């Protein structure tokens, strides 16, 4: 059961009025007034069109918006949706909102949504990012595998620019795949679907004690689904504008993703150490699609950030990396822009050594994560250069090669892990 002190009385009163539901749509928000109105309308339209008989609720967990976001969510009239789309609603469709604090905390937002899902006995849930518009059938694509096909967790596949989501393509996807044996393209995502049953289990099993400051809850959910042997599938959602992590945002992004992944490895060691190779996941629609518009790359700046990072953090790296790996990185750092190349095998070895050091906490874990940033920039530069003129399938082939490299070197990771026990 949800912690009885966790939800506000007002929110609980709203939940009482909603009662048991079949479908729950969660919207974690913070100052999303520009986009949220159209997103809610699209969600409502999707429910009316695809799930007209289901009992549904939209739950907004707001982190202290000052732009009227919650009011926009609860104020969207279903009549507007019906008029526009010529739809008919059999049922009342609820939109309720709760403010959990004065700043956005993903963990608290998701916990609120999960608690609501449990209290309302929701059978299928979706969490949508409030930051950018969605396609009209996204709701259906995320819910239908759960309502219709008995899946427990649905992750999205987006049509991305070929250089979008480099942290996902160069680290999170291939490493998650190598560790857990499932080819989930977007293990860290803001749009996903899950069964009520899985939500309840996750809510009960997860330690929420330090939760409000923990990040990467979405990735923890994915890993919990894998570790719990839940039925997982992917669904193609098409375009989704993404707010790219600017340079200054890389460290928080690394904390949310890499930090979460490294943390989970401890608990899941028995599982991932016994997993060999990888298997595809049931996927609705294409399993990748890329946009090929040219992109200007500041190679010089990326190389400089890598080189200066390697130099400045040499003392840190000596505690994290093996001497050969560090030596190789230092060699690369000395290369000029035209010769710069951070090969896949070295990148994989770097990451694995970071993971092992993270486990051992050779230094502060957060420092370990932070120190990965310049190295990731170096790897990103190589990926960008390698694929600058590549066709879509060639890029996909290069990503696949990287994944295989992660899988190939996995015994090395296991060995390091055991050696440091």
């Amino acid at each position: 059961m949800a912690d009885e002190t966790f939800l506000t009385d007002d929110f609980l009163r709203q939940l009482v009025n909603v009662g048991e539901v079949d479908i729950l749509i969660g919207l974690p928000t913070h100052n999303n007034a520009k986009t949220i109105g159209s997103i809610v309308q699209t969600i409502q339209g999707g429910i009316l069109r695809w799930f007209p008989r289901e009992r549904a609720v939209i739950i907004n967990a707001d982190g202290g918006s000052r732009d009227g976001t919650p009011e926009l969510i609860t104020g969207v009239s279903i009549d507007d949706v019906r008029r526009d789309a010529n739809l008919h609603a059999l049922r009342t469709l609820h939109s309720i909102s709760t403010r959990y604090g004065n700043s956005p905390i993903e963990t608290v937002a998701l916990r609120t949504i999960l608690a609501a899902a449990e209290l309302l006995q929701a059978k299928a849930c979706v969490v949508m990012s409030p930051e950018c518009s969605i396609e009209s059938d996204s709701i259906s694509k995320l819910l239908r595998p759960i309502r219709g096909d008995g899946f427990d967790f649905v992750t999205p596949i987006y049509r991305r620019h070929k250089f979008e989501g480099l942290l996902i393509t160069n680290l999170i996807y291939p490493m998650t795949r190598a560790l857990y044996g499932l080819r989930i393209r977007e293990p860290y995502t803001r749009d996903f679907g899950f069964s009520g049953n899985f939500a309840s289990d996750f809510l009960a099993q997860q330690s929420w004690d330090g939760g409000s400051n923990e990040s990467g809850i979405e990735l923890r959910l994915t890993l919990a689904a894998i570790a719990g042997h839940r039925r997982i599938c992917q669904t193609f959602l098409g375009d989704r504008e993404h707010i790219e992590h600017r340079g200054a945002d890389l460290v928080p992004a690394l904390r949310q993703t890499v930090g979460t992944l490294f943390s989970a490895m401890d608990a899941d060691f028995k599982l991932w150490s016994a997993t060999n190779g990888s298997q595809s996941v049931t996927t609705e629609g294409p399993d990748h699609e890329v946009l090929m518009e040219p992109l200007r790359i500041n190679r010089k700046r990326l190389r400089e950030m890598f080189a200066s990072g390697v130099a400045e953090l040499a003392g840190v790296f000596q505690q994290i990396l093996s001497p050969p790996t560090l030596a190789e990185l230092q060699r690369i750092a000395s290369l000029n822009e035209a010769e710069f190349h951070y090969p896949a095998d070295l990148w994989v070895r770097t990451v694995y050594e970071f993971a092992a050091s993270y486990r051992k906490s050779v230094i502060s874990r957060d420092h370990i994560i932070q120190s990965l940033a310049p190295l990731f920039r170096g790897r990103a530069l190589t990926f960008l250069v390698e694929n600058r003129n590549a066709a879509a399938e060639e890029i996909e082939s290069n990503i696949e090669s990287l994944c295989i490299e992660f899988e190939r070197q996995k015994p090395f990771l296991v060995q390091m892990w055991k050696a440091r026990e």
Partner: protein
Amino acid sequence: MPLNQDVLWYKDAIIYQVHVRTFNDSNGDGIGDFVGLEQKLPYLQELGINAIWLMPFFPSPLRDDGYDIADYHSVHSSYGTLEDFRKLLDSAHERGIRVIIEMVLNHTSDQHPWFQESRSSRDNPRRDWYVWSDTDNRYKGTRIIFLDTEKSNWAWDPVSRSYYWHRFFSHQPDLNYDNPAVREQMWEVMRFWLEMGVDAFRLDAVPYLVEREGTNCENLPETHAVLKELRRRLDEQFPGRMLLAEANQWPADLRPYFGDGDEFHMAFHFPLMPRMFMGVKLEDRKPIIEILQQTPEIPPTCQWSLFLRNHDELTLEMVTDMERDYMYDSYAGDKTMRLNLGIRRRLAPLLENDRRRIELMNGMLMSLPGTPIIYYGDEIGMGDNINLGDRNGVRTPMQWSGGWNGGFSTAEPDRLYAPLIQNPVYGYPAVNVVAQVGSEHSLLHWMRRIIDVRKSNVVFGRGSIEFLHPPNHRILAYVRRLGNEVVLVVNNLSGAAQAVELDLRGYKGHIPIEMSGKNIFPRVGDLPYLLTLGPYQFFWFRLRRI
């Protein structure tokens, strides 16, 4: 008990719909009759109803359960004599029960002498009493009502070698209301029965009286003109009598049938009924409130007629395609339960014999604005027999006892006009009047009580309605009001217990008195009024300012 002399008596009425044939057989021929019905008037009086609506009892080939009339001035011999009917009428009046009879204006049986004359020759004086045509291409914009059996609204008559118009079965030719002689004749028919003492007519299929090219031939101004003329004559010659319209239409299309209080006194609210079932299935008040909010105001002397079930299928003509699909899936999973655009089932089987849901539905029937109609047998939870064709499955003999033929008839069972319900759940040994009379907690006793409470306060029949909108959508709450009399109705449409907070600030200081048990509840204050309701539970509170 004398009849209530109020000319608006129909507003306070509780009507019991019964077919003479189905109710009680006095002479052992296997068919119910007037004498048998008269014998059961004490039962109906005790039930608390104060009007009976008799389905067609005229001479008829009975190819449409009597809606195919072959003689408007007599009664079907199976049911007795005209004198038997007179006696029934008098006995009912003595017990304070008014009698409403069917009048099928739109069409006759093809066996009616009028039609036989009309078809006999194109020169016959009655030729123009029906709608004839040399082609079947006229009135193309008109829908076919009985989709399962009819392919066209025109039928070929080999006798007069031309087509005749029929909106229902092809053996039911439509009368031609453009002919003044027809209009005059049908008023004469009505006057015949009014002079005998009949209190009201349920006028069948009224939207279809007149046809015009280029229209859908429904609800035409010319049809309203015919009906207004009938009403004018009724008021002039028989004040205090009543006309009830059967027009399966949307509320906005029904509204003209009330005119300015100069057409029908009452009309069935067809679209509400399926939405009550839908609301309970969805556990959501939305469909009920939506349709009632779309229902226009009617003149103060007029009244809606509400029902849960009747002798026809649960009609789904007045719902959207999506709603119809939902209703079919929810209430007629077995496709043999479906007929035309509806579901041919009784109340109890529709509600899976769930006593709580049956009570809730009846509670709403009795408390929403309008005059309730109870279909015979539903007061004891009778079942149906979907193996009988057409709508006959909901027209089986009344189950009076667990004895021979369920107490309906002394005839040999195979002589009954229709077999009794025999299954273990709804069969007459399990569901019958005698057993329920003997059980204080039976559905029959509950129905008697709810009817009694309903009759105890005129606000139900005559009051206004104001919906409350508590955030809990599973709760349907409304206030009925007439002068200082205020009744709060709270219905839980859900199969689970619910908490609800009602905004009753407008009634601050009032003391709610639960009308069934007469218990008082905490006084209404400034805070939201909190109630908890069990599954499908409902409350009627009289709000008293003391």
